[in-house]
C-alpha cells in the first residue's frame, strides 16, 4: 500500500484507540480525511487483513439502520505500527507527528 498523507492520518486515527470499534464518519472526522479517500483506504486495509469489519446488532439500536464498524486485527496493529514508525522518520510526514500513536 502506497504511503500517503491520507493513509498516515487514517493510521493515526485508528491507532489512537487500537482496541476500539471505529466508524466511518467518526474516523473521517478524527483523521481529517474526506470520505472519497477514506473508504478506498479502509477497503484496502480490509483486503490486506489489517482490519476486520462487522455490523451493529439491530437489537441494540433504535430508529436507524445498523452501521458498519471496523476493528484493527493483530496483523493490522503490527502493520500500522510499522507504517507509523516509517512515517515518523519520513520528512514528508513531519507535520503529522506519527510517533505519539505508537
Amino acid at each position, binding site marked *: 500500500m502506497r504511503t500517503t498523507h491520507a493513509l498516515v492520518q487514517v493510521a493515526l486515527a485508528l491507532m489512537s484507540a487500537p482496541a476500539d470499534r471505529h466508524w*466511518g464518519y467518526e474516523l473521517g472526522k478524527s483523521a481529517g480525511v474526506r*470520505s472519497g479517500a477514506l*473508504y*478506498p483506504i479502509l477497503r484496502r486495509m480490509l483486503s490486506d487483513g489489517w482490519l476486520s469489519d462487522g455490523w451493529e446488532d439491530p437489537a441494540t439500536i433504535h430508529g436507524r*439502520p445498523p452501521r458498519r464498524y471496523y476493528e484493527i486485527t493483530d496483523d493490522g496493529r503490527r502493520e500500522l505500527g510499522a507504517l507509523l514508525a516509517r512515517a515518523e522518520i519520513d520528512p514528508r510526514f513531519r507535520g503529522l507527528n506519527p510517533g505519539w500513536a505508537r
Partner: protein
Amino acid sequence: MTDLLDALVSPWTFLLVLVVFGAAPRLVLRLLVRIYPPGHERRLELMAELAVIPRWERPLWVVEQLETALAEGIPARRHARPGPGAISEGRQQTVRSKSTVISAGPVHIVRNREDRQCDDGPVDLGPQPGDRVPAGCG
C-alpha cells in the same frame, strides 16, 4: 434590509431549508449509492452513516459521497460485470444447439456429436441430452 429579512422568513426559504437539510440528502444519497453494484456493502453502509450525521453537515457530506461512489462504485461495477469474452447462458444454449465446440486455438466445429473424443481436444460445453459417453472415457 427589510427585503432581505422578508426573504429569510418567507415560506419559500423555509421550504428550501426543509428540502436541503431534510429530505434531499437522503434522496440524493439513495441515487448515488446506486453507482455501486447491487448487494455492495457500501450501499447500506453509507445510508446508515447518514443517519448519525448532524443535519447541518448532511448536504455537504452527501456531495462528498459522489467522489466516494465514483472512485469505488464504478471499478466495483466493472469488476462485477463479466468480461467481454464471457458467453452468456443464452448464447451457450445457441452454441450447444448447433453442436459447435469452442476451443482455445482455432475454431473447431464438431459436425457430429458421435465424433467427440475424450482426449485433450476442443473444450466441450458440457453434456448434451442424448449424448453417449465414448468407451474408455472416465
